[in-house]
Every structure is written in C-alpha cells, then in structure tokens.
C-alpha cells in the first residue's frame, strides 16, 4: 500500500457547539470510514473537536485562482454595500 493508491480527503473540525466546522487540513485514507477515523487521530488528539466532516478532495469544486480578479475585485470600492455607508436618519433611536 502506498500513498498514491489512497485518495486525499479534506478534514473539517467543529470545536464547540454553536460554531461552524472549519477546514483543518487533509489526509490520506483508503475509504470514507477510515478517513473519519484518521481525521480523529490526526486532528482531534489535543481535544480540538466535537464533530468531524471529511470530504474527498476531488469532490470539492473550487473557484479558479486565475480568475481571482474578475471574481473578487468587483466589490472593492463599493462602499454603499456596507451598512456603515449610510447615515442614520434624524430621530431614529437605537440604531
């Protein structure tokens, strides 16, 4: 058995109730059952989590790094999309 026969998995750890799962890293495992166990052994051995997700890396659809400008630069400078852009109207309390 070598690493190139074991697929790659991405690991998400939720550290406490009420928080989201956060990407923690990746690992190799032969199948989903073992992947979640390996994730437990690799990413929660210092009491970091109470819930785990694993997902095959190849199943994640990502944005294209080459299209970063066209994807993500547009919102820059558009202050009016932030609530702080607007002044509170006179007479409105507790805003």
């Amino acid at each position, binding site marked *: *058995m070598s*690493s190139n026969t*074991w697929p790659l998995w991405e690991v*998400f*750890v939720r*550290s*406490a109730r009420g*928080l989201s*799962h*956060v*990407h*923690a890293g990746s*690992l*190799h*495992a*032969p199948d989903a*059952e*073992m992947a979640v*166990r*390996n994730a*437990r*052994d*690799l*990413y929660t*051995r*210092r*009491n*970091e*989590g109470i819930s785990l997700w694993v997902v095959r890396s190849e199943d994640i659809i990502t944005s294209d790094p080459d299209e970063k400008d066209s994807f993500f630069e547009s919102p820059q400078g558009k202050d009016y999309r932030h609530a702080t852009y607007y002044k509170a109207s006179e007479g409105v309390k507790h805003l």
Partner: protein
Amino acid sequence: MNHDELDATLDSFGDALASATRVTPGNALRPEDIAVDGVVPDEDLAQYALRLGDDALILAQRLSHWISRAPELEEDVALGNIALDVLGHARSFLTYAGLAWDKTEDDLAYWREEEEFTSLHIVEQPNGDFGVTITRQLIISIYQYLLYSKLAASADPTLAAIAAKAVKEVDYHRDHATQWTRRLGLGTEESAQRMRHALEILWPYVDEMFQDEALHERLGDRAVLPSSLREDWEQQITQVLTDAGLEVPQVGMAMARGRSGEHSEHLGYILAEMQVLARKHPGASW
C-alpha cells in the same frame, strides 16, 4: 463569574472562532490525581491493579514499536495514539498499585524483574506483520472493552474511575481493529491469508485471558471475574471475524501462566529495551 473568568471565557471563544485547532487539556482523571488522592489499596487490590497495569504496559511497549514503521503516516499516528492511550491506563493502574507498597509507577515499570511482571502472554507476542498486530489488537481490545465496562461498576471507586476513563478509549481501539480486520479479511487473497495466519499463531493465548484466580474470588465485587467475560468476548469476536470472511481457528491452547510471572522468551527483550535507560541513569529526570 468574575472579570478574569469572563475574560478567559471570551478569549477562548475568540480562539475557537479564529482556529479549528483550539487546544484544551480537558478534565479527565490523570495518574497524578490518583497519587495525590492518597487512598491506599489493600494487598489483593494492588495485585489486581498490577495485573491490569502490566497488561497495558507491555501492550503499549509493543504497539509503540510501530511508530515510524506503519504502512502509512496516518496509520502510524493511529497506532501511536492507541499505544499512548494504553500507556495512560498502565500509568493509572500502576500508580494505584504502587501506593500499597510505597512505590511509584516508575519503580514498578523500570525496577522489577521479568518474573515479577504479571502480564498475559497475548500482549508480549511479537508485532509480526500489520495483520498480526491488528489481530492481537482485536483480541485484546474486545477483552479490555468488556473488562473495563464491568470494572467501571467496581465497588472500589479508584478502579471504577480508571476503568470509566479507559473504556471510552478502548472502545475506539476495538473499532480500529474491527475496521482493519474487515478490510484485510475481505481485501486481497494475500491479506486474508495473513489474517488467517495471525489468528492461528495468536489464538493459543486466548485461554489465559479468562482464567480466574483465588485473588478474583477474594476481591468479589471490587474486581471482574475473567471467566465472566468469555461468552461475550467469543460472541463479539466471532461476529467481527465472520463479517470479515474469516473463521475462529481450530488450534490448541498454550500453557501460559503470565499471572504467576512465567513468561515466554519475548518479555525479557521487551523489558531490556524498556528499562535500559532508567537503569543506566537511576533517578534521572527528563
């Protein structure tokens, strides 16, 4: 909650938001707590704790040999974690036993001779290939799971507390061994053949695990009678093996008296490696 506590709470919440790898020590029972607790076991209880501690210690020593040698990095960490869990159980049991004789866990681990160790023969069996180690893990982790499940209800509160902590960890070891037994048993012809071989060489040491001693009878509801675990153990392991396309091997049982300090040739080598540093530099700390 005072201000400092509130700050600490908010800080930890902030850390948790910022990172998926928040580290907290938790609040489980530690060997250090047993030592300062000061409840001294009587001789029978100490002898019983010594047996459970020795099983765990020798198994931990065997398992830790896999570190840097496992077939995959992930499996390396898995076996290392299991070894550390088991070492933790050994520390708790040996710390507790040692209170009866004014000895520390280190005195018992490093300064006893081979014939003073009371461990079962199954735990000193060589690691062999990965299949042998997994098979040994399957045999011993189902056993320890059943044992600690019952011991958690012991009339002795310290043993009950150690067992209650250990059973959750051993439950995971049982799952780990079960998963691998299934994959190796149903894997290739090679992996199934290696599992059949592993079962044949390890099964002879099963009988010893369930032998009752006068000690157990005397301890009554403070200990678990080994023979009382056998039926559940056989049922569970047969189920795992059947699911893995494997069978209980038809082999004779070995004469094994590890509880009386009679060991195979393997234990001496294990102890030599485990004890050499402590004996070469007595009293050193690191």
